[in-house]
């Protein structure tokens, strides 16, 4: 007779239930990630793979041709992120605040309508907006003409000054539903007693939003910001669908994702270079890692939470 408390039993069910997810995740995420990091330390010389240490990183940052492309892509990526932070998230919060208003009619219809673009494929969104904005077949010039503002029209996707901002706004249009949904859920979870107590104190309408609701949804806004950051620095699809791998005009819409793709897989006469491609992918990984750490340790740990 053994005492069941003398020795901790192996809890097989935990291992069994975790195994499928761990195995799949390891095979498709963890192993490729580390293999990419490893690949960035190699190079190909005369058809054989040789270890070169950090030489690829030195080329990426030290060589004028590579570093110019890299900094251009990084700067574009920051602009892409900035537009999302300044446009997508405030609009998402505003929409959520309006939707959570108890007297709004057809709220669920608006909610679905605004959320639908999020589930569309990038390719559809890219091509649809390319057509809408097209100077030849598009409805944008005609619509502006109808209200007498034809002079404001420009072939935005073809102009270096506007292309990246235009694509950022298209992406905002597509994804504004996500911050809206998250904030909407956070707003619904605020207990009515708090809002009623505030009302008794004379805080209603806008000031109730600024003074009561906004502080309570700040943690959600933090999560949204970090999700936006990760998604934007991994972005690739929309730019590729709308502008191709050369991210024209004149690389003005080139972000880290398209730069990595072009380098890794090659393009037209440019032969693919998996080693430099992995180097760029590793740098992207580092940027995202640093961003997430800054947020986790610098901001989230200091954020005040309220328990209801």
């Amino acid at each position: 007779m053994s005492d069941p408390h003398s020795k901790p039993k192996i809890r097989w069910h935990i291992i069994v239930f975790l195994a499928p997810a761990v195995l799949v995740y390891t095979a498709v995420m963890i192993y490729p990630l580390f293999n990419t990091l490893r690949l960035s330390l190699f190079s190909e010389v005369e058809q054989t793979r040789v270890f070169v240490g950090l030489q690829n990183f030195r080329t990426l940052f030290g060589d004028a041709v590579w570093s110019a492309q890299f900094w251009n892509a990084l700067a574009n990526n920051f602009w892409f992120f900035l537009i999302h932070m300044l446009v997508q998230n405030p609009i998402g919060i505003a929409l959520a605040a309006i939707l959570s208003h108890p007297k709004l009619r057809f709220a669920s219809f608006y909610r679905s309508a605004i959320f639908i673009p999020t589930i569309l494929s990038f390719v559809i969104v890219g091509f649809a907006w390319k057509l809408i904005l097209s100077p030849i077949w598009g409805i944008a010039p005609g619509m502006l003409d109808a209200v007498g503002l034809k002079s404001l029209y420009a072939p935005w996707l073809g102009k270096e000054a506007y292309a990246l901002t235009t694509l950022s706004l298209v992406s905002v249009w597509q994804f504004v539903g996500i911050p809206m949904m998250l904030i909407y859920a956070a707003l619904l979870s605020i207990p009515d007693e708090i809002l009623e107590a505030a009302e008794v104190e004379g805080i209603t309408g806008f000031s109730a939003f600024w003074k009561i609701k906004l502080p309570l949804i700040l943690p959600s806004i933090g999560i949204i910001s970090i999700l936006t950051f990760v998604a934007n620095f991994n972005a690739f699809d929309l730019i590729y669908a709308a502008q191709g791998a050369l991210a024209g005009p004149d690389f003005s819409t080139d972000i880290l994702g398209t730069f990595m793709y072009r380098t890794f897989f090659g393009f037209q006469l440019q032969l693919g270079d998996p080693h430099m491609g992995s180097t760029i992918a590793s740098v992207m990984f580092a940027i995202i890692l640093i961003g997430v750490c800054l947020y986790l340790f610098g901001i989230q740990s200091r954020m005040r939470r309220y328990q209801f």
Partner: protein
Amino acid sequence: MNNSKLIGAMLATTMLASTAAAQDVTLTIESWRNDDLTIWQDKIIPAFEAEHPGIKLNFTPSAPAEYNAVLNSKLDAGSAGDIITCRPFDASLALFEAGHLADITDLEGMANFSAVAKSGWSTDDASVQYCVPMASVIHGFIYNKDAFEELGIEEPKTEAEFFAALDKIKEDGSYIPMAMGTNDQWEAATMGYNNIGPNYWKGEEGRLALLAGDQKLTDEAWVAPYRQLAKWGAYLGDGYEAQTYPDSQNIFTLGRAAIYPTGSWEISGFNGLADFEMGAFYPPVQNAGDTCYISDHTDIGIGMNANTPNPDAAKTFLNWVGSSEFATIFANALPGFFPLSSAPVELEDPLAQEFISWRGECESTIRSTYQVLSRGTPNLENDTWNASVAVIKGEETPEDAGKRLQEGLSSWYEPQQ
């Protein structure tokens, strides 16, 4: 019951096939031209098999975008076909250097090809040939004959006539003078720079001098095409900056534009779409009477797997690809893809005839950036796309564009240092 019948039938066919194989050699052909599957099955393969009993052909194409990757893994695994369709220049050169493509320099059929035609599939010093040139595309301008008649314009022969014609179309206003956009970038370089350029750098003479390091991209011959491109911007449609390649094709075939800078590969597609008569003219020369140069770009080649078990049959087939019989079948099935052999070929499509007739009038060359020069970083071909667009839009002067390309090229290409 049904199942066992089926299995029986399958076994029977397998046995039949294997007895047939004991006498016949079957050659499997790897290709990215899945558009051409019916042409191979209905025309090319029957013609070859009728002439060469004992050799069977099996055409197994894959999707163009996947071809290089699929082929490489098949070759590494030893499961690739006997005959391999070759991309021009570096992609195939890499296969040859890795020992996957056989040296076929001594093939009799090779005598039918000019040095330019062979340049796409030979080593840098042109001493070893590893693929038989199969097809090329010719650059030029297709125009709307009805529009030209309506406005009383003749095919321009010189640059001055070309711009006079463009001015006239623009003044009239019923047609967009030229259908081209800069959104996809490659048209500006391929149908712009490499289309009109050979007239300035004198075709092969300039291209080989650039390869040897005797000329630079900052030389007048290489900057002058940009000077012409800079003038094009005014004649392209409104909002050409965001106009894509399919947009341009549609604008022209709908009859909204008069001139379309292009290549012969459009012919078969356009024949079905345009309901007006089309004509073509080669890139106008600087002064009347100058020799004209055309870009007759090598695009498809065909070679032999170095590890094929049937080298003799494969060589028989490659020799046949070099013959005028193959050239005639191929050229008529695919108007716009021209055979590269010097053997005489009869073409039925009038527009294709027009294009190929320039081979007699003008000197042929290939796109300047394709051989060797796009091997390093920065990639000269990609840079040329970029520079051509910037020049057309007026964002970069022709001189600056030449300077930037030369700096990029000389940073890695030794003969230019």
